[in-house]
Structures are given as structure tokens and as C-alpha cells.
């Protein structure tokens, strides 16, 4: 009895050993095959990452079609619809005029004093432009579309219609002519001719996916910059073109390196501009250089005012979004870091490396945007960036207050009966101070693209504003200041 029970115990134990061994071997075989399959996949990814399932050409505007060939890039491109806030910006369309009511006074008499919402992501550029009160309540030209829609094909088609001969060799002539036609159209009419916000075709050559710039405003602007003597260590191809005897004109698409083009495609739009003359040609004021005072000197020379300030009557300028100009002054540009390096960093999907087409603030993606070069913790990197931005924000607030002080002083002097001659110097100071303040405020990095330069510009803004106040007192002999204790 006892012995037979022990025997059956051992028999049961042996069966268990078989069962466990079988299961273990089955699992091992399964894992080996899964592992094998994984390695096969990774090897395949490394060999080919593009399958041309449709043909794309310079005529293909719809990004969804390109997306069939480049699904990874397209997926991230579509995500520019995201709404995210960073400490000082982001992609949520809050009303700046409500957040900082001082800007209602600074922009008095101008469309921006009516509606100044924070930009949303690339996906919304066309929609938001059609809806802003700056367009619905004011008459705007077709020029605005250069940077709010995928207009390359529109320009080419309009150029052909206007009589430029067809063919690839006349590519730029077609674009430039079409650009002239569209710029002077009324906005509402021109907007009917476009359908998409910035699309693949606006930065890529369909034939070989090379980066390519095509916006006439940029092509003309960068050539004007090349012709100047403004040093461009961050754009070595321009310096090379100058050194080689300035033959013909600078051609960014053939002269610039791929790394430079990774900034230039962005600089097609993220720049300061104005609408030149009756033709409303979008023009980048770079003839004298990219610095705030060089652009100002250009505007002074051509006698450009964006508007007359409603409260003070000063002829003032509106800075647009001079990201390229500000970046050009900073340490990242100087070190050869392009826009795309931080705003479209490489991401890995399996064994494939693609640049992230979800263009956004690096603060939302510190690991990939910054840590590739800066080998410190994400927390530390974020803290450093925010420190720069917080300092800039504080200085910006001071400059706003200084400018308001000047506006108040001029308004008070006007009420007291000061003449235009007496207020000329003060109004000139307002123009200078306001231009500098706005140059930093409108620039989308809260000073980060070039911290020291932003601080320099704001220091000048504050100085000019206060000098303006002194000028009011001096030239109008205001009784309060004349009374010395």
C-alpha cells in the first residue's frame, strides 16, 4: 500500500517533467521564431524605406497623394493640428490683445490692434488667415497667400497664362511672373485659387525629394542679402559665392548645401517682410543685412511706414515674424544648427530614420531636439531654455512699459497743443523704439533664437522710448520738467 503509493507519486512527478520540458521547448521554439521575424523586419526596414506606389510631380499639390509614398513623413505632417501651450507660446489661438492689453495701444490704428491671435500649427495657416479679422475687416491683397497657402502651382499656372514660355528652364520666370499677378489680386479672389496650407511641394522637389526653395520673396531677398556685404558665417555658401567673384546671381537651390537648405526652406516664410509698392510684392528687406537696425535703415531709405499711429501720429513699422533674422544672430546658427535640426529632429521608427514633419516647439520634444548635442538631462535643458525665455519676457515687459510711457508723453503734449515740429524727434524715437520692441515680441522664440541679441534690441527699445520722453519734455518745454527743485 505504502510502497505502491510512492511509486505512483514518482510516476506522476515524471509525467510533470515531460509536460514542463515540452512546454519549455515549445516556448523556446516560438521565441526563436518571433525573434527571427523581428530581425527579418529590421533588416528589411534598413534596406528600403520608400515604396513608390503613386507618381508625384511638380503638379501634385495634395499632400495626401505624397503621403502614399512617404507615409511616415505624412503621418507626422498631419499632426501639426495639435494644440499645445508652452510657457510663452505654443499653438493655441489665444488673443494676444486680451492677454497683454498694452498691445491694443501699441497697434492703435492698425489691423493688428483689432485681432492678434497666437498662430496655430501649419495645418491651420490658410484657414486661420481666411478667418482673422485682419483679413475679414480690412482689404488685403493676394500677396498674403505667399506664405499661407501652397501657392507654387498657382504661381506657375498664372505665369504661364501671362505668357512666360513653358518648360523646366523657365521655372523661375514662371513663378516670378505668377507671383506678380497674384500679389496684386484682391485677397478674396486669390484665396479662391488655392486649396491647401503648406504642402510637400513647397519644400521638396518632386523628382528627387531634394529640398528646394521657390518662394519669390525669399529668392529675391536672399539674393539681395548675398549682394550686400553683410557677413553670413552661418550661410557659408553665400560667402563662397562672394569669394568666387559674385558671378551672376546667388542661386540657393544649387549653391547652398543641404544643411543650409534645412533652414532656407523655413526662411521662405519665417521672416520680416513688407508689401512693396502698388504691386504689393512681398519683399524681404535684407539689402543692408539681417540685423534689426539694418532692416530699419532699409525701411527709412525706401520711406516705408506700415501705418500712422492713431494716438501719436508717428509713422511706425510692424515687425512680422523675423525668426530667420533672429536665428541668424544666435549661437545655434553660428554652430551650423539648422531650423530643422531642432524643430523637425530625426526620429527612429524601427531601423528607419526620418525627420519629424510635426513641426513644433523643441520644448515639447527636448530629448530628440536638444539631447542629440546637449548631453544633459531633459529637466536641465528645459530649465536653461526657460531661464533664457523668462529673462527675455521680463525685459519685454519693461520695454512695453517704456514705449507706453513715450506714447502717453506724446499724447499729453498733443493735448497741450504741441506742434508737429516740436514732436518730430519724439515721434522718430517712437518709431525706433516700437520697431525694436515688436521685432522681439513678434519673433516666435521669446528670445531663445538669439538671447543676447534680443536683449540688446530690447535695451535699445527701452533707451529710445525714454529718450523720446526726454525729447518731448525738451522740445515742448513741459512745465513739470522745467521746474527744478
Amino acid at each position, binding site marked *: 500500500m505504502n510502497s505502491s503509493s510512492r511509486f505512483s507519486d514518482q510516476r506522476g512527478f515524471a509525467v510533470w517533467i515531460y509536460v514542463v520540458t515540452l512546454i519549455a521547448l515549445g516556448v523556446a*521554439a516560438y521565441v526563436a521564431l518571433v525573434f527571427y521575424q523581428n530581425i527579418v523586419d529590421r533588416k528589411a526596414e534598413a534596406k528600403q524605406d520608400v515604396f513608390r506606389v503613386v507618381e508625384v510631380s511638380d503638379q501634385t499639390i495634395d499632400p495626401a497623394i505624397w503621403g502614399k509614398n512617404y507615409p511616415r513623413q505624412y503621418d507626422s505632417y498631419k499632426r501639426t493640428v495639435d494644440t499645445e501651450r508652452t510657457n510663452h507660446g505654443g499653438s493655441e489661438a489665444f488673443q494676444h490683445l486680451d492677454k497683454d492689453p498694452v498691445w491694443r495701444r501699441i497697434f492703435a490704428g492698425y489691423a493688428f490692434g483689432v485681432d492678434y491671435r497666437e498662430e496655430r500649427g501649419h495645418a491651420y495657416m490658410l484657414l486661420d488667415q481666411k478667418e482673422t479679422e485682419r483679413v475679414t475687416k480690412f482689404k488685403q491683397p493676394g500677396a498674403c497667400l505667399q506664405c499661407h497657402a501652397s501657392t507654387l502651382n498657382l504661381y506657375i499656372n498664372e505665369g504661364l497664362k501671362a505668357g512666360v514660355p513653358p518648360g523646366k528652364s523657365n521655372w523661375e520666370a514662371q513663378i516670378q511672373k505668377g507671383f506678380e499677378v497674384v500679389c496684386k489680386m484682391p485677397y478674396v479672389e486669390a484665396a479662391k485659387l488655392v486649396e491647401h496650407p503648406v504642402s510637400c511641394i513647397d519644400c521638396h522637389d518632386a523628382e528627387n525629394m531634394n529640398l528646394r526653395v521657390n518662394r519669390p520673396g525669399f529668392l529675391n531677398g536672399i539674393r539681395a542679402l548675398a549682394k550686400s556685404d553683410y557677413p553670413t558665417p552661418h550661410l557659408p555658401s553665400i560667402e563662397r559665392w562672394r569669394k568666387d567673384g559674385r558671378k551672376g546671381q546667388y542661386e540657393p537651390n544649387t549653391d547652398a548645401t543641404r544643411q543650409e537648405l534645412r533652414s532656407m526652406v523655413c526662411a521662405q516664410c519665417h521672416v520680416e517682410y513688407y508689401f512693396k509698392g502698388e504691386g504689393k510684392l512681398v519683399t524681404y528687406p535684407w539689402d543692408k543685412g539681417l540685423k534689426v537696425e539694418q532692416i530699419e535703415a532699409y525701411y527709412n531709405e525706401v520711406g516705408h511706414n506700415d501705418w500712422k499711429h492713431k494716438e501719436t501720429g508717428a509713422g511706425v513699422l510692424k515687425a512680422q515674424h523675423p525668426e530667420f533674422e533672429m536665428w541668424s544672430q544666435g549661437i545655434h546658427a553660428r554652430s551650423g544648427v539648422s531650423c530643422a535640426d531642432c524643430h523637425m529632429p530625426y526620429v527612429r521608427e524601427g531601423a528607419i530614420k526620418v525627420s519629424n514633419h510635426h513641426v513644433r516647439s523643441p520644448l515639447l520634444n527636448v530629448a530628440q531636439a536638444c539631447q542629440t548635442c546637449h548631453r544633459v538631462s531633459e529637466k536641465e535643458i528645459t530649465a536653461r531654455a526657460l531661464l533664457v525665455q523668462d529673462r527675455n519676457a521680463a525685459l519685454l515687459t519693461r520695454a512695453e512699459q517704456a514705449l507706453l510711457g513715450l506714447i502717453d508723453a506724446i499724447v499729453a503734449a498733443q493735448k497741450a497743443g504741441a506742434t508737429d515740429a516740436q514732436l518730430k524727434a519724439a515721434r522718430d524715437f517712437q518709431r525706433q523704439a516700437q520697431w525694436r520692441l515688436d521685432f522681439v515680441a513678434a519673433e516666435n522664440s521669446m528670445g531663445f533664437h538669439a538671447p543676447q541679441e534680443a536683449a540688446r534690441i530690447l535695451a535699445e527699445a527701452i533707451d529710445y522710448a525714454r529718450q523720446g520722453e526726454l525729447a518731448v519734455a525738451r522740445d515742448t518745454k513741459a512745465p513739470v520738467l522745467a521746474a527744478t527743485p
Partner: protein
Amino acid sequence: MKAPTLFMTLRKHPLLLLAIVALFGVVAGLCTYTFTYAQGFSYFSNDPQACMNCHIMREQFDGWQKSPHHAVASCNDCHTPHSFIPKYLSKAENGFWHSKGFTLQDFHEPIMIRQKNVAVLQQNCVACHEQIVDGINTHPGDPKKMLDCLHCHREVGHGPIR
């Protein structure tokens, strides 16, 4: 009575024994094939190409080809200990983490060297440059406290950093 039970059962059921043995063979075959397909033996070598098998190290490899150390040191000269047993222990440990990371795709991007491997690097810098750095080597033998060579010489291995 106790010990021979297992063998007795096996003797009673020879087919079961055959099945288990066959399964061992199948698994061994599958593993060997996967290992070969994955170029498993290359990881025992000193060939820098092996470090690029999984493509993650392509940039580091490209950078190294243009770096000052290209002519005198390859991946293992800097990244693994120089003596035999520590070298293969280090390869085994890092190999495990690399395989896990690449298979499950759960690693930190950009990839960063672990503290433990920084210590190996540091020892290897000193191993070659001992005569020069002897005077500034503040904590000889303690790679964690030594003056960090790479703090200033980050570019020697993989070329210039943007």
C-alpha cells in the same frame, strides 16, 4: 526504487523520449539559424561593422570614420575592457541590453552611454595615453573620480559634434 523511476518511465515509453529529443533538436536548429541569420558570431569579433548590424550606430560609425582616432582605435578599443574575461562579460551585458532595446524598441532617444560604460571608456583613454595624462590623472584607478577626458575631448571618437 526512487532513482531509476524516470529512466524506467522513459524506457516504457520510448516514443516520448524520441519526441523530446527531436524537439530539442528542432529548437537548437531554430536558435542556430536565427543566431546565424542575425550575424551572431560577428559580435565576438572586433569588426566595427558588427556594431552597425542594427543600424542604430550608423551615425557613430560614420563619425568615427572621419574622426582622429579612426586610424588607431576601433569600437572595441575604447568601448570594451582590454583584458579577455572583462571584455566578453562587458560584451555580454551590453549585448543583452542592446538586443532587448532594439527588439522591443523601448530605448531612450537619442541613445546615451551609461555611467558604467563611461568608466570603461575612461580607463581605455588612460591605457593608451598614460604617459601624457599621468600628471593630471587625479584619481588613478578610480574611473568614476578621474578627470573626465571626454568632458573636453568629446570629438575624438565620433568626429565633430554639430
